[in-house]
């Protein structure tokens, strides 16, 4: 299943947050969205997943999601959004229960996703016992449990320290290599974008418009921490964003 964004504009009251945004999200690719703060990248993500309605334009689903996909458009949030009163296992079963998956079937799914995110030993733990990185792993395994057609990731690593971020990035890459998932990945971190994105959508400051879409052909598993070519791309992205970020920083906030 592919997604297509068709000339999306969005307003909050009088404020125009984004203008005329169109791009494709092809199956099996990770699309990163970057832009200065307040450019509406998180809003765009909410529009893509149907948590908000765009003022103009539409998000179009091309083809059907796989039959076994329980929740085709699935989010991973920056603040993890785990229920603190449920264990790791309970947080995952929460999203299965409503779709009628309980008992042995749920158990099998939970075991599978916890193995894939290396969380098997933490099955009974409560969120308060886990570190930030572990919490985000739980959120990722919860997302995997519903077998999404597209993962919508809203700055998933921004609340984590840089070591944990590195580890989780490796985990995401190995998850993707094992089974190519589709994802839209919003971040303000250019390094994450060049490491994880097959293409990177650069937005301008508010009202967010597409400045450029940068494609990176190098396969994900071959990308490393200090790759020269990636640094080249990162520098290019920063050049694109620098002026915008500077200007966005000086803007008065009156939303």
């Amino acid at each position, binding site marked *: 299943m592919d997604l297509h964004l068709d000339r999306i504009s969005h307003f909050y009251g009088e404020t125009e947050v984004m203008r005329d945004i169109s791009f494709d999200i092809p199956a099996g690719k990770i699309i990163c969205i970057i832009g200065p703060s307040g450019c509406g990248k998180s809003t765009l993500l909410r529009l893509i997943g149907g948590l908000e309605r765009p003022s103009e334009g539409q998000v179009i689903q091309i083809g059907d999601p796989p039959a076994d996909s329980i929740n085709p458009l699935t989010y991973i949030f920056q603040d993890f*959004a785990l229920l603190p009163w449920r264990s790791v296992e309970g947080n995952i079963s929460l999203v299965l229960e409503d*779709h009628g998956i309980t008992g042995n079937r749920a158990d099998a799914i939970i075991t599978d996703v916890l193995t894939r995110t290396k969380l098997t030993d933490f099955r009974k733990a409560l969120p308060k016992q886990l570190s930030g990185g572990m919490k985000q792993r739980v959120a990722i395994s919860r997302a995997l449990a519903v077998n999404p057609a597209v993962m919508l990731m809203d700055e998933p690593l921004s609340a984590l320290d840089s070591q944990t971020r590195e580890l989780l990035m490796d985990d995401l890459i190995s998850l993707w290599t094992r089974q190519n998932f589709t994802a839209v990945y919003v971040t303000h971190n250019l390094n994450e974008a060049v490491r994880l994105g097959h293409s990177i959508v650069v937005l301008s400051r508010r009202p967010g418009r597409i400045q450029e879409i940068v494609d990176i052909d190098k396969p994900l598993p071959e990308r490393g921490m200090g790759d020269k070519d990636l640094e080249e791309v990162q520098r290019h992205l920063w050049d694109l964003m620098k002026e915008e970020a500077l200007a966005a920083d000086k803007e008065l906030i009156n939303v």
Partner: protein
Amino acid sequence: MSEIASTANGTGKTRVVNFRGGGFAPKSMRWVGPIVFVVLIGLMELGTRTGFISNLTLPRPSDVFGTFVHLWDTGLLWQHMVPSVSRLLVGAALGASTGIAVGVMIGLFSLVRAGLVPLVAAIFPIPKIALLPLFVIWFGIDEASKYALIAFGTFTPTVVATYGAVDNVDRSLIRMGQSFSLSWRSIVLKIVLPGAMPGILSGLRVSLAIAIILLVAAEMLGAEYGIGAYILEAGSLYDLERLFAGVVILSVMGVGVSALIGLIEAKILGWRT
């Protein structure tokens, strides 16, 4: 660089940096509470025995205790306790459950909020005791009017605490629920209600204390037995020992209710950090 080195070498005066980070962190001190009670009661006993406090101002704690023992021995204690506790249970259960239900509705539906919040604000400050005659007319002089008074008094603070608690549930959790296409029912039952539970329980502490206060008021309505009736009778006779014995029983009930809620919190809110 050279300057730093010279001070470290001892040419400048050295002293330890002042600590100024203490306080503002409540610690658990279990024994202080009981000590305050013991000291206060000890002072009262000492004062009344030495004559520093006259027997008209304060009853002697040992006499109050004696009255209590008498109550126990004659079986009058249970005769008063059983109706009181059952009134409290029925009234508070009615008030708290409808209060929680209405509070959750206010928290969930804008229309209910717009309609009921002003109404609750209007009835909250009414001293429920002032409505006593009304309750007698509506529910008769029997138990029903006593239940109604206690229920009504418990209802308003429970409503306010509950909708506040529902408002405070982390919106990002609700958004998460929606993003996984959970049904409205599941979001309410599995996210909103458990998330509001801490606020609801701490609201219940206040409401149940109010319920005990109103118990005495309710028993002004021609009750023959009951802690409230016992206190009122002792009061009108200026029998301070019995008055205090009754008051102590109410206090103990209050402590008991608070401890019960503490137990429930420890049991079901273990997930809190």
